[in-house]
């Protein structure tokens, strides 16, 4: 019994990933394929429970397998794909202003009518086939209201600030400096001369 339990645990875990549910119905024969039904719900404000009618939002499209088929939403948000063969498919929702995760849909050939779905972005299984946007998309930058800080932080503001420092603080520093020391520093500078070009090259610097 002991060696079996990890395997069982693994099985259980993998089952949790894909919670099975049936939301499809098989039509007349397996040759014609299955029907995938689903629903798109868009919350009026992310996080709240109020939903808006998807049809009113914008031109929402539901896309199967990267453009193989395209369908639209009914007023209540439902959509359907007919005659889908068994296999693993991908459903994407294109809606301006919202980010939807693509959905992996497994249509089982062995148990007709059994379909599993999982969000590919978060690898989360769906218990009912209701697609909700992961987040709203804001396509524009928001203009910051005018503030003194933004001007100070802007390159021009920084330049002005730097200049002010030079103008007002440097003389103060000079005043504090010992005249003796100052003369020495000036002399030192004169002795050093122009820095050589060779020392600036990275290769030469490394070979040293």
């Amino acid at each position, binding site marked *: 019994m002991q060696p079996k339990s990890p395997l069982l645990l693994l099985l259980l875990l993998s089952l949790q990933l894909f919670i099975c549910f049936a939301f499809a119905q098989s*039509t*007349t024969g397996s040759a*014609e394929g299955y*029907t995938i039904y689903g629903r798109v719900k868009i919350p009026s404000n992310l996080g709240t429970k109020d939903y808006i009618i998807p*049809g*009113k939002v914008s*031109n929402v*499209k539901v*896309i*199967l*397998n*990267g*453009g*193989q*088929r*395209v*369908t*639209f*939403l*009914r*007023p209540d948000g439902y959509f*359907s794909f*007919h*005659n*889908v*063969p068994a*296999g*693993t*498919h*991908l459903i*994407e929702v*294109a*809606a*301006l*202003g919202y*980010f939807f*995760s*693509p959905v*992996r849909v497994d249509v089982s050939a062995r148990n007709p009518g059994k379909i599993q779905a999982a969000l*590919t*972005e978060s690898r989360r299984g769906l218990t009912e086939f209701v697609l909700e946007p992961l987040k709203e*998309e*804001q*396509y*524009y*930058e*928001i*203009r910051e*209201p*005018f503030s003194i800080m933004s001007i100070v932080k802007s*390159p021009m503001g*920084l*330049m002005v600030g*730097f200049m002010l420092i030079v103008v007002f603080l440097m003389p103060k520093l000079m005043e504090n400096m010992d005249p003796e020391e100052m003369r020495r520093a000036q002399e030192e500078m004169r002795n050093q001369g122009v820095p050589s070009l060779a020392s600036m*090259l*990275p*290769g*030469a610097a*490394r*070979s040293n």
Partner: protein
Amino acid sequence: MAIRVFLIVLLFLSFTNLTYSLYEDQVGLMDWHQKYIGKVKHAVFHTQKTGRKRVLVSTEENVVASLDLRHGEIFWRHVLGTNDVIDGLDIALGKYVITLSSDGSILRAWNLPDGQMVWESSLPGSKASKSILYIPKNLKADKDDLILVYGKGSLNAVSGVDGEVLWKKDFSGESIEVSHIIQSSDVIYVTGFVDSSKISVYGLNAKNGELLENNHAALPFGTFGELLSVSGDMFVVLDEMRSKIVIVHLRNGEISYNQKHISDLTKDLAGQAVILPSRLPGMFALNINSYVLLIKVTNQGELVLVDKVNNGAAVSDSLSISEDEHAFAFVHYGDNKIHLSVKNVNDWNHDLLKESIVIDHQKGKIDKIFVNNYVRTDRSHGFRALMVMEDHSLLLVQQGEIVWSREDGLASVVDVTTSELPVQKEGVSVAKVEQNLFEWLKGHMLKLKGTLMIASPDDLAAIQALRLRSSEKSKMTRDHNGFRKLLIVLTRAGKVFALHTGDGRVVWSILLPSLHKSEACENPVGLHIYQWQVPHHHALDENPSVLVVGQCGPSLSTPAVLSFIDAYTGMELKSLSPAHTAAQVIPLPHTDSTEQRLHLIIDDKQHAYLYPRTPEAIDILKHEFSNVYWYSVDADNGVIRGHALKSNCIQEAVDEYCFDFRDLWSVVFPSESEKIIATMTRKSNEVVHTQAKVMTDYDVMYKYISKNLLFVANAAPKAAGEIGTVIPEEAWLVIYILDTVTGRILHRMTHHGCQGPVHAVFSENWVVYHYFNLRAHRYEMSVVEIYDQSRADNKDVWRFVLGKHNLTSPVSSYSRPEVIAKSQSYFFTHSVKAIEVTSTAKGITSKQLLIGTIGDQVLALDKRFLDPRRTVNPSQAEKEDGIIPLTDSLPIIPQSYITHALKVEGLRGIVTVPAKLESTSLVFAYGVDLFFTQIAPSRTYDSLTEDFSYALLLLTIVALVAAIFVTWVLSERKDLQDKWR
């Protein structure tokens, strides 16, 4: 030190923002968006009762739309999937628009006012057949309004309220080709041909689909074309010789027929007759040799010729104007005008309307006409006609005038190229007069108010208006930054448009005469458009020109058509219709003395033809004879071949512009395990700024930059289809990078469990491609970068100083450089329709990938996200170098959609063109819609932004000057006080 600090600050500022972003009030400043619908197939006018002046259309781009009749604007529009072709359009219940699509297997109802889909129903069937949508008037089964749909070999009666299939009758076993559905009280008659010579009629009960009767009648001859319904129980069809008209009469299910020779009706016409598909009560139209015959069918089944019109163009369906009066419109040409007449079907001699309109002849002939009536204030009938022209544009004609027109040919762009605008010459005023200084200052004061947030709403509106109608951007001359250009687009209708990049207006358009239907060339199609002549310094007096390459039919074995167009005036300079085909067109990197680019056109018989056909071009080619290489991809057999020129053609007719070529190499992929699904090369005009790439440890890598690189993606044969048809174990993707001169494979990589579709983009030394990973069931994007190892030793400065480096050694495809390839893969959320990369004038600016997603948006993704050097924990040095920590998926930042809150419906391609300003790249995305914008992948580091406030600058300067004076006065005073002390 200060400079260094400042530079670091600047660098920091430029690196913090990786995204391209836009403020909402900047929309329309640099971009424009145009909405189209495509060539109209069906049009249904709203009835008088609904009150609104709208027309519903469905188009060849699979668009169903509602247009405003007053201005031609789109009220609502839906673009269906690419293989969801619309076969029928009608209005049901007075409130739903019904579309039948996908060969009669999908029926949808849309809400008439706002276009919301109400219901959708799938009508399965097994047999491919014609599809018919028929909405009978006043036919109810259990209170439901019926919609009859024939498609996929079966007849379905669908409830108009909820789309439920009420009954179904399968005809797939009967080998009948159904052509008509007729309703008479409660019986539905389905008529059609069996083997084109036997007419078959089925009578069905409208309530439940029960088969009531089935009658046949065999004709002693075959028939040509389709049955046309003339009145409720009468049909006409042509016999197979197309010389006789057969009138078929159905009376209570009984079939009788009689026939009449066309020559009995009119003596002097002979030729191939075609029945026009216009539905007219008791009449039909016949087309012979550009003559249109209007023939009336009497109740006894006799034919009477009513009118014979020369240069006839189009005949509309009939329109019921009152109880038993029907009107229809027909148009014919004469004296450069279009004559539109609306006539009553029963009263031939009386015209309800007769108008002549002048239509720009660049719109070509009238393809289709739809007519609609309205009641004038004096209770008489007025008519308006919707015309679909040869160039796919749509016109509304009312009271002898064109009320509006739409250039819907632009919905089907085939190829795009660009042209520079003319240089502004002295003394030539091209655009509006420049604003005066006061206006300019006023504008900037307004802007300043805007930035300081002290502007009133009125001011804000004024600012926005000022920015949008900046006269600068729509001028017809070249600008310093190279933002203003002409986009020259070739459409499927064979029309070439020049669009101004400033505001997207059509500068000129030409319906190419050489792409017109003619006897030699039956179905001409435009294929490609190339820059033919781009004058520079010494040839500046000449106008640039473009080359349009087309062929006479859809197959590759039809002869080519070449047309040369002046890019400034839109005139066709000359056109050629050579005997050879155009399987491949290769622009060579050589130009002649007039800066015409040399092109090689490869035909399907192993010959290469040189254009332009001048002795000078021959001389240039002779000089470069051994340096011309190209390749061909044979995807069906899995072979890629390399070619080079050999000698002049050995033919009966001597043609010194024709060359034979030889195969240099071939790469044969094993057909049982690999199938070519995508190939991609570098753009020939791409500029690379630097060959070296400095790594974080001051190491230098040399990019392997060669124009002759080809990226090939092969999929497992089983996985060459669509997603959902294959399991991961049977799928793999093999990618190759080939040298197209030697055929050498530089890099090969296998992605197990992956499949296409593959979209790739090749630039500099890297290729990025997008594919589907079946194991993770997500899309992936991979990057491969190729580096040249043979130059890797050139790192030491002393080698450069002493000249001991091999950097000046010529890059040749014959040498076998050692290359290494680095690669990395990432997940990407969306399906992709197209990938492009930004291109700039000098190639210094960092690159962005432009990804056209399945949602018809274009996303700009920085190339730094696709960098094989990314690691999970980059070191401090790597971080400073701009390396982003590795994540498993590529980020999608909404602000970096360059299409912002717009969609380029039906996106098919993205084109990037460098502007003269290094930081900026021009982007044109096309599909059903057109979108243009200019983007700066590293922000506009070399110019001031649009919203730079000159007024603020002036104000600062004034303030500074004032401060100087004040401090000067103050210091003077202080000095004086010091001296007095």
